[in-house]
């Protein structure tokens, strides 16, 4: 387990370094200087040079790059070019909002998905089975931003006052209102993901129910409910957790659309704003944070799979970790 974790962490560090390099150079090659944005076009060349020197923008690129990497290793993402606040302090608030949204969404919809998928598989050809089969495809096909707009029409215009359709209230200010704010974004963001989970659960549980060990459990006279939840679901949960883990990373990047519909102050809106204002340090910091969250989610999904699947552990002792896991 430790060797596996170490190898995966080393891979993650390597990929993060590649992402950093890519982001750093892409941003530096963008036209338009932040100096004009900060001071306007009317300022003198002299004062611009001074500012460039102050910001370290007059150094050669490799030097800037080396400085940036060095500071990054100390956890310093630099300062926003506009208000001189550290990028870290600007990111924490929105990151917490986005992570909360993504996490709550994942928990709610994975639970719903597993339950619906299992009930569908328990009675093949039943009403719920048909509903999951058709519903999961339709639900996956609904773009979150459109569903969000429809929700705003319904809850903001047609039946106002039932649920807030816009904005964000921090938990500290008003816990109840905070939860009410979460309802629509969580519904919109996770609906498609819930469909994928339900569908995966249904398919893998149906496979498991046809397997030999379920036949053995039936022959041994175990009650049908025990067979479904204790015997068959154990194996069926494995592909479902893998899908759920990968989904988490996608939810984090999917929040950008939902945040813009419901006007939630999360990472997505911060990132879009940073790029629009050519705030290099903030934009780089945001991109790196999003990439890191995505990679960490994938890592956790792999680790969970590794814990749950004895075959994977066995194959790793025989083969090289990279090939077995990536395949």
């Amino acid at each position: 387990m430790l060797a596996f974790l170490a190898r995966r962490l080393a891979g993650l560090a390597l990929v993060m370094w590649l992402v950093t390099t890519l982001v750093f150079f892409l941003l530096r090659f963008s036209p338009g200087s932040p100096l004009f944005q900060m001071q306007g076009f009317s300022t003198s060349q002299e004062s611009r040079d001074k500012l460039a020197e102050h910001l370290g923008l007059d150094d050669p690129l490799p030097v800037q790059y080396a400085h940036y990497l060095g500071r990054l290793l100390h956890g310093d993402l630099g300062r926003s070019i506009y208000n001189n606040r550290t990028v870290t302090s600007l990111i924490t608030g929105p990151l917490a909002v986005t992570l909360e949204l993504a996490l709550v969404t994942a928990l709610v919809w994975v639970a719903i998905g597993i339950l619906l998928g299992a009930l569908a598989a328990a009675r093949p050809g039943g009403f719920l089975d048909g509903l999951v089969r058709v519903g999961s495809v339709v639900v996956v096909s609904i773009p979150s931003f459109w569903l969000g707009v429809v929700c705003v029409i319904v809850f903001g215009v047609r039946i106002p006052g039932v649920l807030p359709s816009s904005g964000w209230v921090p938990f500290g200010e008003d816990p109840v209102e905070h939860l009410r704010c979460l309802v629509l974004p969580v519904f919109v963001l996770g609906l498609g993901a819930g469909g994928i989970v339900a569908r995966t659960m249904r398919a893998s549980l149906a496979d498991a129910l046809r397997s030999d060990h379920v036949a053995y459990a039936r022959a041994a006279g175990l009650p049908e409910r025990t067979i479904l939840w204790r015997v068959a679901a154990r194996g069926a949960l494995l592909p479902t957790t893998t899908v759920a883990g990968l989904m988490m990373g996608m939810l984090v990047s999917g929040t950008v659309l939902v945040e813009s519909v419901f006007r939630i102050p999360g990472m997505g809106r911060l990132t879009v704003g940073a790029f629009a204002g050519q705030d290099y340090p903030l934009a780089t910091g945001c991109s790196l944070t999003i990439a890191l969250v995505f990679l960490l989610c994938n890592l956790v999904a792999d680790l969970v799979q590794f814990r749950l699947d004895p075959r994977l552990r066995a194959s790793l002792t025989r083969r090289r970790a990279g090939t077995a896991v990536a395949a």
Partner: protein
Amino acid sequence: MTSVTVPDRISGATPAWRSRLRSWARKTGRPAPLTAAGIALLVGFTVLALVVPLFAPDPRATTGLPLESPSAGHFMGTDHLGRDLLARTAAGARLSLAVGFFSVLLGLVLAVPLGMVAAYRAGSWLDDAVMRVLETVQALPVFVFAMFVIGLTGTGSSSVAGITLSMSTKVVLLLGISFLPYFARVARAQTLAEVHEDYVGALRVLGLPRRRVLGEVLVNVLPPVLAQGFLWIAIAIFAESALGFLALGVQPPTPTLGGILADSGNYVLVDAWWYSVLPGLVLVLAVTGFNLVGDALNDRIDRGGSQ
């Protein structure tokens, strides 16, 4: 299989194409209801995208009053500038279809060779390097990529190395590259499964050059990869509209499905429901169609492989 086709050929009474069609229909069978529904949705979307623009008014011209509700003159109503919403949706659908098709094609053309070479050298430094670079591309969300591209090249046409790239071409490039890791993984996994087959060993023993062996493997790798690619047209259409919604895609006044939906968001409070609901429904039905047919294709190939 052969027992089905041989009698057809002997009978000879019916024209060859008809018997071939019949035997194909017998082999494939009647499509499942869900697949049939998917095919119907795709046909509908294609007609909207390719045929309706021929008859509809100019999608950029003002042909009615602002925010007219659906009527005989404007089947889907008008937008906030009095432009026909059906014409705009159809033009947006045509762009979505083109971007979806070409971005998946581009992703496949780049990803399949990459995934196959990585699998053929599984476990080597080359495999590791390819996979890490793919993870790097995967770690950055499409919208972050889009902001880089727009930051570098602006939102209009731009010329790179003497070639003029329109914004829609840039969206195709953007989506194609961001799909690359997913396609390459599928191609790699399929190739990994194939290289252990007996025929690959036999070809190697015969002393065929590596390129020829990979060519033979490609024939067996392509069907599942193409089925997966078909499914990804749905994701591409979704991504194109999402970029349009965030104003990171093809820019106004060119109509895009995402752009129409973003505009409509400003008019929900005046209760112009048709403005956001109808174009959105078109998008949902199109994506559903691609998903249904793509699922059916994948199922068929899975079953074919296991038999």
